[in-house]
Every structure is written in C-alpha cells, then in structure tokens.
C-alpha cells in the first residue's frame, strides 16, 4: 500500500490543484533549465576557446634570438645572438625530454599557379613542428618529413586558406606550384583548425617547406625563432631554464639574461584560462542556482499549504500509530517527487535546446553548449539539495503536529 497509496495521494493532490501543481513544477523546470543551460554554455565556450588556443600549440614556448642586455665574461651588452640549426640539435641532445623545432620565415617570395600570384608567409621548419603546433594534414596529404629534410626536397605543405586561394576547390596534393620560378610539389594541405593567437600570421595562410630546402634556396643560416614544448605545463619552467643554460654556454652570454632570447610561454595563458574558467563556471552555476532556489521556495510554500490542507490526514495517521518521522518522510518524499518531475522536465527542455542549438551556426563565436556529465551532475545535485531543503521545513511542521489539534481541526 505504501508506494501505491502514496502515489495515488499525490495524483489526487495534483488533480485537485492542477494549476497550482503545474506552476510549482514550472518553477523548478525553469530553474533547472537556467542552471543546466548556463553551465552547458560555459562548458561550450570553454571548449571553443581551448580549441582556439590549441591552434597555436599546447604549452609551447616561442623563442626569439635577440641582443644581450648584460655584459658577460668581458663581452659587452647589446651583442646580437644568432641561433642556427646546430643549436637546435644541441638542445635536442641535452634536453631530450622536450621537443624543439627551429623556424625560418620569409614573406618576399611569390607563389604562382596559373594566373594566381600570392606572396604568403613561408615557414621553414622540421617535421616535429607540425605535431607541436597541432598542424594536421587533411586526408590524402602529409606534412614535411625527415626524408624531405635530408634530401632538401622542394616540397610544400599549404595552409588551408592558402590552398583555397591557389587552387580553389581543386585537389592540390600532387600538383606543382612555382615559388620564385622554382617548382615545388604540394604534399599536403592543413586540416582546418581554430587558432586565436599567432605571432606571424595564422597557420591557415602559410606555406611550410623543409628548413634545409629553405636554407639552400635563400642562403639563410640563422633561425628567425624556435619553439619548444615540455612534456607538460608543469615542466615548462625547468625546460626553459635549461634552454637558457645551453644557449648561454654555446653563445657566451649570461644564463640570467632573459633579453638575449625573448620567450613567450603560452602555458602561462593556459594557467590563466584554467583559473578564469573555473571561476566563470562557478559564477554561471551560482547565477543559475539562484533561479532554482526561487523555484525551490515556491515548492516549499506550496508544501506548507499542502500540509495545512492535509492536517486531518496527518492527525488520523498519528492517531493510528504513525511515528512523526514517518510523516516527515512522506512529505519530504512528495517534495522530492515534485522537484524531480520539474527537474526532469527542465533537463528535457535543455536537451531539446542543445539539440537545436548547433543549427543556429553560432559555434564559431560561442562554442556549442554541451550536455556533459558535469552539466547533468551539477543540475541533479542542486535539484536534490534544493528539494531536500524545500521539503524539510514543511515536512518537519507536519511531523510536529499535535494529534489532538490535527484531529480537532477536521
């Protein structure tokens, strides 16, 4: 009888007070929608921005050789430091747990294909560069490889936008483009990627060639910059320190001279984003939960009225031997049921919205809100807590009723 009769009693209340119950449940539904949508949007936005961040490479450090700012062992300051591919080799040898790639660049040479002429940024580097910068070849292509490097092959990997400019929708891989009248074979095109920061143009508009080929072609010796990547963000400071040590020894400058080699540690941004988004998410959850709390207050009020209306029933139950705790449990369970119904409705609305949202095509700007486990867990937890609190006080009042008074009121 317990469960069945309990359910029947609830349905009876619902039937008698359709509008009241509907409004109460609506309050919870609305609160649930706001919490879950806000958290989902927060997650989507975070995922979007993180994806944009990854475009430059995860936790990479970009280093530019510059001039010394401190005198060192008899050498004055202001001395130009120039880094070569041999230095990169030395770094790879001495700091084997990190990855290094030098980069040379040029924006003076013209690519020509049929009647199209473009002068893009040419980036000359090594195969590992692609992995560090999240450059992924689209199907059918590949990045510059070690063999290209060894044999100084004239091959080029094109950013997706550059490819589009040169070839349009045509297939590019296997075709030849002229670079200052030297034929280059296209070996791959970049998969479209999001990139929100750069230091010499987005990768989508660049042409990538083997650094050996570049050196031969333009008789350039010195690297414009180099990038390196530690195993994880936590190891970055240590690797950075050792990079200074190795290069300072080879080029005779003070290892503490941070200006000799300028560095941009992108993992600093990562740390900032971790804190920023943690706070942002908590903020959204709190704003959303306020709405849910308002819904909870509505439920609590209604439950007070329900207890009032059912005073006689409570009196009868007490008279035939119901313990106060039983009465309390009953009303708590009713409140939780109402809350759960509202919550499920709210989650359904949210899921429906999230299913439709991608059709709006706003992904590029705000990301795609996702019904991640975090969203569902946060919402469910909040609902449970609010249901318990909303039910606790009316249920407690019900359980504290004096049976004599409860029966007399009838």
């Amino acid at each position: 009888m317990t469960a069945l009769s309990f359910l029947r009693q609830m349905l009876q209340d619902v039937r008698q007070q359709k509008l009241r119950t509907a409004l109460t449940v609506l309050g919870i539904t609305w609160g649930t929608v706001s919490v879950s949508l806000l958290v989902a949007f927060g997650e989507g936005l975070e995922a979007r921005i993180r994806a944009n961040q990854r475009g430059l490479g995860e936790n990479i450090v970009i280093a530019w050789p510059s001039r010394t700012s401190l005198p060192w062992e008899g050498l004055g300051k202001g001395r130009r430091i120039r880094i070569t591919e041999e230095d990169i080799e030395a770094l790879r040898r001495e700091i084997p747990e990190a990855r290094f790639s030098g980069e040379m660049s040029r924006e003076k040479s013209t690519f020509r294909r049929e009647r199209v002429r473009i002068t893009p940024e040419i980036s000359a580097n090594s195969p590992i560069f692609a992995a560090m910068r999240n450059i992924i070849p689209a199907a059918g292509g590949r990045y510059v490889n070690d063999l290209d490097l060894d044999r100084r092959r004239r091959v080029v990997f094109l950013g997706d936008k550059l490819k589009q400019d040169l070839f349009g929708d045509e297939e590019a891989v296997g075709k030849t483009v002229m670079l200052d009248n030297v034929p280059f074979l296209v070996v791959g095109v970049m998969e479209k990627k999001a990139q929100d920061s750069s230091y010499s143009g987005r990768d989508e508009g660049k042409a990538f060639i083997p650094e050996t080929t570049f050196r031969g072609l333009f008789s350039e010796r010195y690297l414009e910059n180099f990038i390196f990547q530690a195993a994880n963000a936590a190891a970055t400071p240590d690797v950075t320190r050792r990079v200074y040590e190795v290069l300072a020894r080879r080029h005779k400058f003070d290892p503490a001279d941070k200006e000799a080699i300028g560095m941009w540690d992108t993992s600093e941004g990562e740390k900032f984003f971790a804190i920023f988004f943690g706070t942002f998410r908590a903020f959204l959850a709190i704003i959303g939960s306020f709405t849910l709390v308002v819904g909870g207050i509505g439920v609590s009020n209604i439950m007070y009225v329900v207890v009032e209306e059912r005073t006689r029933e409570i009196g009868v139950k007490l008279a035939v031997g119901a313990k106060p705790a039983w009465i309390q449990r009953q009303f708590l369970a009713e409140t939780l049921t109402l809350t759960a119904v509202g919550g499920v409705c709210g989650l359904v609305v949210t899921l429906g919205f999230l299913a439709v949202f991608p059709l709006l095509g706003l992904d590029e700007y705000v990301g795609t809100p996702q019904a991640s486990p975090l969203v569902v867990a946060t919402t469910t937890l909040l609902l449970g807590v609010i249901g318990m609190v909303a039910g606790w006080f009316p249920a407690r009042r019900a359980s504290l009723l004096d049976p004599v008074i409860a029966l007399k009121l009838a």
Partner: protein
Amino acid sequence: MTAEQPLIELQGVRKVYSTGRLEVEALRGIDLDVHRNEYVAIVGPSGSGKSTLMNILGCLDTPSAGRYTLGGETVGGLDRNRLAEIRNRHIGFVFQNFNLLPYASALENVELPLLFAGVSARERHERAAAMLERVDLANRMDHKPTELSGGQMQRVAIARALVNRPTILLADEPTGNLDSASGKAIVSLFEELHAAGQTIVLITHDAGIARLANRVVRVQDGTIVEDVRAAA
C-alpha cells in the same frame, strides 16, 4: 477480577490548557481503573472534560499532572515516538466523524495501522480483509469512503481500530453521526466484541447506549461524579 492488575490506571490526572493568559483546567484529578474485558461508558455534558479524558486514555494527549499506567507501563513522560507505538499496538480509536482517509479504499484504510506496525504487505492485506469480513464489509473492500454509507464508514473505522488487536478499544461518540438504524448496528457490534473479550471504553450522550455498558462513569466539570457498575 479485582485482584488482577487493572489495564488502565489513572491517579490524580489533571489537564490544564493554557490559551494565552487564560488557563482552563479540563480535568481536575481523575482516578479511574479499567479492568480487562470491561465495557465502560463515559457520559457527561459537553465541556465536562470527557473528550480530554478520552484523548489522554488514547495517548493522543498527555496529562499535565498525575499518573497514567497502561498495561503496567507508565505513559507519562514518554516521547512522541513511544506514544505513537503505544497508540499503534495497544489502542484502537473510533471517532465520531470516522476519520477515514478519503483517497484510500476501505481495505487500505484498515491496513494503515499494520503499515505503521511494520507488518509485511501480504499479511497486512490478509488481516485487513479478515477484519472487514468480521464487520460484514467483505463486499466493500475496494470502495472509497465516499462510496460508503455512514454506518459502513464507521464499521470500516472499527475494523481499522481492531486490526492490530489493541488492548483497549476507545470510541468517542461512535454513533453521533449515524441514523438510528446504523447506530443500533454499531452498538450491537460493540456488544459482540465485548462478548468476545474486548475491553471497550466509549463516550456517549445516548443514555440508551450507556445502559448497555457494564459500567457507567459520569464526568462533570473535570471530575468523576458517579461510577456505577451494572449488576452483572
């Protein structure tokens, strides 16, 4: 019979209600013993305190002063949970206005005390059905109270009061809301129960019903003014 320990023992029981500044003494020192298998009618004018006495006997209310012993256990000073247990195990209550749960069937209403006693669903069902048969409502088990007549409702209430085999059956004006034919049927049911060994205490206005009891206690202004045992 007199040598036996009384089932109910009230000694100097007082009940004071305070409503703001005003204090009303509903009971002013009641001494009453009820023995096993007695059939006691409590009579008295309105406001005499007989309902208060009934509530105290039924453990719905606690005395302000004095001692109440039920089946050897002192009731005074027990907490709400323990009082609920006593109501559940030892007392069967029948009210003037039936006090059935409107949304539950006759059977479910009768099952209620067994539910709070922690009896299994199957046994609850069997015992409640048997009790409804006992009060001649075997064919009304699935009816809601609104689908029953007053007399039938009161019989459901009696079945509910008896289903947990209480030590005493307390009835507060059980025929007050019934027509005379239904009232008579209820009264004869009480007589049958008494004949079968049930201890009964009832409140009534009706001298005719009181006469059927084997003991009549008259309450007036919060004290017992008369306690007459019928010559058996």
